[in-house]
């Protein structure tokens, strides 16, 4: 993450005035709690919440709670919500620039929200089908959300948007381990005011290497997106199926490593 030259909010007042600094907290279930562990770490002089495994579990609970309703919303509605996020990011471009995100990258991130907003009511038309089976059956296929997705986000702001938007547009909810905390929390503030229901996106700041294994081994996480994992050994470890818990009857389906869907690469 490019470091911010100065962590001054663009709307500064007269030089004599002492600036009010922002507290960077987690984003879980639509609220901004501190880490239950009470830990913080220093990023560019800011104390940022350092998420623990318990925070990760709380976030999974919040994501699960929100998932059914979000998936049950109409595709049109989800598209509208994502477009609203684009509008709000556009309005707060300067804030991201002040945090060191290049202006062109912020613009690309806005466009990426718009791109995925448009997919909401098209993904089933492109990837679904009416299957002409040779029998008296009515047979259709339609893509469905997998559920709760654990995401290790890349360091860039555009990367962060590019892992969240495609996961949620189809009705999944996400727990995101963010690499660049200030930009991620600023995005969380946007999500919190863009009609995204609480719990659909949960963002944890801290060390992915510490929290990711807890997401990967969590029984209620349906899929993993490891796009942001830079350590190959950690990636391999996270990808490995967990051993079945106790009695052999219900070996847990290994969390899937999900690559980004094709559309992500296009614009």
């Amino acid at each position, binding site marked *: 993450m490019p470091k911010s030259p100065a962590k001054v909010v663009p709307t500064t007042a007269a030089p004599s005035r002492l600036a009010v600094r922002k507290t960077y907290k987690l984003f879980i279930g639509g609220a901004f709690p501190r880490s239950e562990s009470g830990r913080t770490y220093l990023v560019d002089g800011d104390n940022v919440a350092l998420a623990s495994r318990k925070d990760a579990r709380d976030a999974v609970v919040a994501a699960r709670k929100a998932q059914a309703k979000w998936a049950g919303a109409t*595709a*049109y509605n989800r*598209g*509208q919500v994502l*477009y609203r996020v684009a509008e709000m990011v556009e309005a707060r471009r300067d804030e991201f620039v002040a945090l060191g995100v290049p202006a062109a990258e912020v613009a690309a991130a806005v*466009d990426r929200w*718009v*791109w995925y*907003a*448009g*997919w*909401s*009511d*098209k993904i089933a*038309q*492109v990837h679904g089908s009416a299957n002409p089976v040779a029998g008296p059956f*009515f047979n259709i296929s339609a893509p469905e959300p997998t559920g709760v997705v654990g995401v290790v986000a890349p360091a860039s702001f555009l990367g962060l948007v590019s892992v969240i938007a495609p996961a949620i547009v189809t009705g999944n909810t996400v727990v995101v381990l963010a690499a660049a905390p200030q930009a991620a929390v600023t995005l969380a503030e946007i999500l919190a005011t863009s009609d995204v229901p609480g719990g659909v996106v949960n963002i944890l700041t801290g060390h992915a290497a510490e929290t990711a294994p807890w997401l990967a081994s969590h029984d209620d996480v349906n899929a993993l997106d490891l796009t942001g994992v830079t350590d190959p050994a950690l990636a391999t470890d996270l990808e490995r199926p967990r051993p079945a818990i106790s009695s052999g009857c219900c070996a847990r389906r290994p969390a899937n490593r999900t690559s980004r869907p094709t*559309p992500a690469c*296009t*614009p």
Partner: protein
Amino acid sequence: MFTYAPAPESRSVVDIAPSYGLFIDGKFVPASGAGGVFKTVNPATEEVLAEVAAAGTEDVDLAVAAARRAFGPWSALPGAERAKYLFRIARIIQERSRELAVLESLDNGKPIKESRDVDLPLVAAHFFYYAGWADKLQYAGFGTTPLGVAAQVIPWNFPLLMLAWKIAPALAAGNTVVLKPAETTPLSALFFAEICQQADLPPGVVNIITGAGETGRTLVEHPDVNKVAFTGSTEVGRQIAQSVAGTGKRLTLELGGKAANIVFDDAPIDQAVEGIVNGIFFNQGHVCCAGSRLLLQESFAEEFLDSLKRRMATLRVGDPLDKNTDVGAINSAAQLERIRSLTQAGSEEGAERWSPPCELPAQGFWFAPTIFTGVTQAHRIAREEIFGPVLSVLTFRTPDEAVEKANNTPYGLSAGIWSDKGSLILAMADKLRAGVIWANTFNKFDPTSPFGGYKESGYGREGGRHGLEAYLA
């Protein structure tokens, strides 16, 4: 029966100018004058709303030339940028939807609750939907090359919605358009022109020219047009197909219909009655896919008709701007005349006519909701599109008979099936020759769902992924 106090929607949200020119190359310009001017009236009161220019040959030339100039840069824009223009337009429509709904009810005569709750939300949704396609054309499977200049002629029954059906996919695919709204309902298209300005849409991408049949003919016959899209009567559609033949212009036609609404005796009666009423009295029956033929299973026909008549007696006919109004004004004197002459033919040919007691306003164009029973397949009211609040009731005994009667029409736009039995619905849907088939509902539209007909109802599909095909090569 209780009565309703008047609940009129305020018309103060709309500011209609006394006269309008044409919208060419991003500007409102006076017409050359060759086509003259005409008045558009509120069909509920016969009050003149505005004077509108009729585009002559010279004006059509200018509009097509503007669209041609705009085509190069517009089609060269990255899809994502075109998408953002369309999203903007969608947002402005959402923000101005109350104003546009009132305007539409004033100019068209449809009840405000329909323009507010059906037309406008669908218009905005249509632009949102196709905005999303603009940068995803390669996923649609119809190529990614736009055709060029599209000439689009739309009817008066859903003025703004038909405009959205035409303009949104055309622009998403990278075409530019010249659109002619119907002569009795030009105002919402002119307001849309203003929305294009508000959205900073590049000049010439959308051009709106007003006028009657002659203007439309000049437009579709213009040699520099690559694509013709028409929604309207089968008669005019046929003339257009004739004139387009051999020119290489691409053509889609969305024409008339005489839909069968088939009710089996296991259908829940009250829900089916609601659906039948919605199917034929929605928008005064000015709907090409209206369920204008009711096919009732004989075993429960009488019981069903009693319920239907009881429900019809509660329909409120009157002021389109009243929020409680169910059935508004007939769009024009000419259309009222057509409905009258066809219903008279129904009586003369021996069908039994019934309307609920219903007081109609003295001014304006009105027609009471009407049903005909004892209709045979030979009657004109069972064969010809009335395009008004008139339902022809026939009966059947077996599913096969229902299919045969439903398909016994030159049209094939839509059909409805009412039954509790899923397998029967699917089997029927398989055999009905109609482009859109509703089961246990009727007149439900969505931008993601393609719409269009078989046979004399035209060809091509509008809406959905399929709707892009008409604008891509």
